């Protein structure tokens, strides 16, 4: 029997691949499935939405980590909100300067499933620098007394368990626990389909009121809706281009699949339709 997994990207557009189901469970928060595919390897699906595939997860995880780290090379205390699959953790663990990595994941089942079925992705959960906290992300940033240099918001979509990670109260409380030169990178959805674009716009409107520097950068992630994906770079002091520590980063000699320093700069060059969406398009005189 041939089984297909399909994810609706809009009401009338879907994305599908041929799958074999390896695992399925329902946690307190969501439905979690692992599929085997031919072209994308194993796929992690939550509530019918593709979270990652073995084939293209590196693009996402490199971009959500290295862009920030190459700017803030002295970051020591890092907080991951969500990210239970451990992919962002894995990329962060490549930086010897980092002293602590705290991950706040609402759903304890996600790290369990990731370590069992996606061990290549899941990073090292036994690293002495690492602490896993099973808690609501918003509650954690509201109540923690710890200060951070970098916060990575590796959330699901703005509905379901991730809904509060797209709110002003969440980003306001993140601002509060970042050090004076701290910064935050979040997954910022896709600007392409109309309903996703609305989330991009409203999230940007909220965060740009809180952080003095708020810029979007992009990557091509084939298995996400439309493939065109955005990230937010929210910072108290450092500009992602002016403060890029190119030399220091190169010296680390990290072998990356997608990220490099030229792409770092290029990823902040946004298409006009995205600039227009977030109200940053310059007026161009018509000839």
């Amino acid at each position, binding site marked *: 029997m041939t089984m297909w997994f399909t994810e609706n990207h809009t009401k009338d557009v879907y994305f599908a691949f041929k799958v074999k189901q390896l695992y399925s469970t329902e946690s307190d928060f969501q439905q979690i499935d692992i599929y085997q595919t031919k072209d994308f390897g194993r796929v992690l699906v939550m509530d019918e939405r593709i979270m990652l595939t073995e084939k293209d997860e590196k693009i996402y995880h490199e971009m959500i980590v290295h862009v920030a780290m190459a700017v803030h090379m002295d970051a020591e205390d890092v907080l991951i909100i969500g990210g239970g699959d451990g992919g962002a953790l894995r990329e962060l663990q490549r930086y010897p300067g980092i002293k602590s990595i705290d991950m706040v994941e609402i759903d304890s089942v996600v790290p369990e499933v990731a370590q069992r079925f996606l061990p290549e992705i899941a990073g090292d959960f036994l690293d002495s620098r690492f602490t896993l906290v099973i808690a*609501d992300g*918003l*509650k954690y*940033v*509201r*109540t923690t007394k710890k200060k951070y240099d970098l916060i990575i918001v590796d959330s699901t979509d703005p509905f379901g*368990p991730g*809904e*509060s990670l797209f*709110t*002003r*109260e*969440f980003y*306001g*409380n993140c*601002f*509060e626990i970042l050090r004076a030169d701290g910064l935050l990178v979040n997954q910022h959805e896709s600007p392409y389909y109309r309903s996703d674009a609305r989330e991009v716009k409203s999230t940007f409107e909220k965060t740009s009121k809180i952080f003095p520097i708020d810029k979007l950068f992009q990557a091509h992630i084939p298995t996400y809706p439309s493939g065109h994906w955005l990230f937010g770079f929210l910072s108290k002091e450092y500009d992602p281009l002016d403060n890029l520590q190119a030399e220091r980063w190169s010296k680390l000699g990290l072998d990356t699949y997608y990220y490099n320093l030229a792409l770092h700069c290029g990823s902040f060059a946004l298409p006009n339709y995205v600039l227009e969406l977030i109200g940053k398009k310059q007026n161009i005189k018509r000839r």
Partner: protein
Amino acid sequence: MIREYKLNQEETPLYDALLEYRKQRMVSFDVPGHKQGRGNPELTEFLGKYAMSVDVNSMKMLDNLIHPVGVIKEAQELAADAFGAYSAFFMTNGTTSAVQAMVLATVNPGEKIIMPRNVHRSAINALILSRAIPVYVDPGVNERLGIPLGMSIENIEKAIRENPEAKAILVNNPTYYGICPNLKAIVELAHQAGMKVLVDEAHGTHFYFERKGPISAMAAGADLAAISTHKTGGSLTQSSILLSGPGMAEEQGYLRQIINLTLTTSSSYLLLSSLDITRKYLALQGENIYQRVLEYANYARKEINNIGGFYAFGKAEIDHDAFFDFDQTKLSIHTRDIGLAGIEVYDILRDEYQIQIEFGDLGNVLAILSIGDRPVAIERLLGALSDIKRRYGKKADQIAVNEYNQPKVVMSPAEAFYAKSKQIPLDQTIGKVCTEFVMCYPPGIPILAPGEEITAEVLEYIDYAKEKGSSMTGAEDLATEKLNVID
């Protein structure tokens, strides 16, 4: 189980009849004209075929709320049993109509009724309809929070002593802020004096299913209670129940006649079925549900008080008299210590955080927790309050504000309402007798009611509330820049 039920609370006679009606595929040549939704495609797409197919008229198999003899009668009996009442009347004009029915059924024109002045406008409206004369009891004020309370027993005794001919006492259980009076003592005093006890329980549906909550009107022996099942109980907006205690056993038919004076003859079966299904749910699950709600509320209260600057008050404020008990599911939060008026916090929450709370007045905001709440939503409220503190927190606003001014009543609400009046600018009204309402809505507790003298303090309060962004309602002049006064 909180109460032993006499009837089988698993049953839903009205809901079952609607399901049966749908199965019969009846061809209708009666109203409503949309005929199961077919005549109004856009509305049907919006509300759903399912809902439209049971938006029907009264008929034999579905009974009639005006004259219940079948499934509605059965459903009302089940409701009475669930709430521990002598009888129950389903209302489809909101709790406003239940409050009015309580007053109209017990107080005739020209007769007196004892009540606190911090009642909902529906109660004073009832005085206009019934032409009853109010005897206002000072509800008492918590000085720190500036909010009106639930009347001291001493003040009630005094009112009864001075007005032995009064027919009824109307009380709030709880007030909007969650404050409950000593209901048992009030019932005892009133019954000794031959007066009926009417309870506005618009915000107290859950009292009937909480193990540790404040006492409900029926448990306290009150004669009538208006409960807004739609507010904290989970039924559809505008559906409500009037409960009757055994003290009204002789007047059941009269009560029905009074209700029918203003009840629509086309009661919505969507509202009625929501009452039937809600009653079953509360009777069987209410205790667990409200236990969970209470845990959420107590958690939120503790966390809010940890933020600093906000004061989510609770049982510590109880004074065993006018603040006799507290509804802990109400998150009443005093905001002035962070230098913001309640209404400002209310506006910021809505405009900047997409969080809609119940109301904000000058010194407080109120978030209502009920049957539909989830931890994620509560964390959002807590996160937003802590962010507001970060962004706006400044020194406490030193101006002490009272949310309550004891009114100077010059004539009865009905007398003033029907008197010849003229409209004049606000600043020229001092010393005049007002003929209309002025209130911030919500909460909808009148600052001025018909028949009251307009004082400098009242105008000051109105100006201040307007400046802080409260929306004023009640007056004929929508901007509340002019008021109708006795000519």
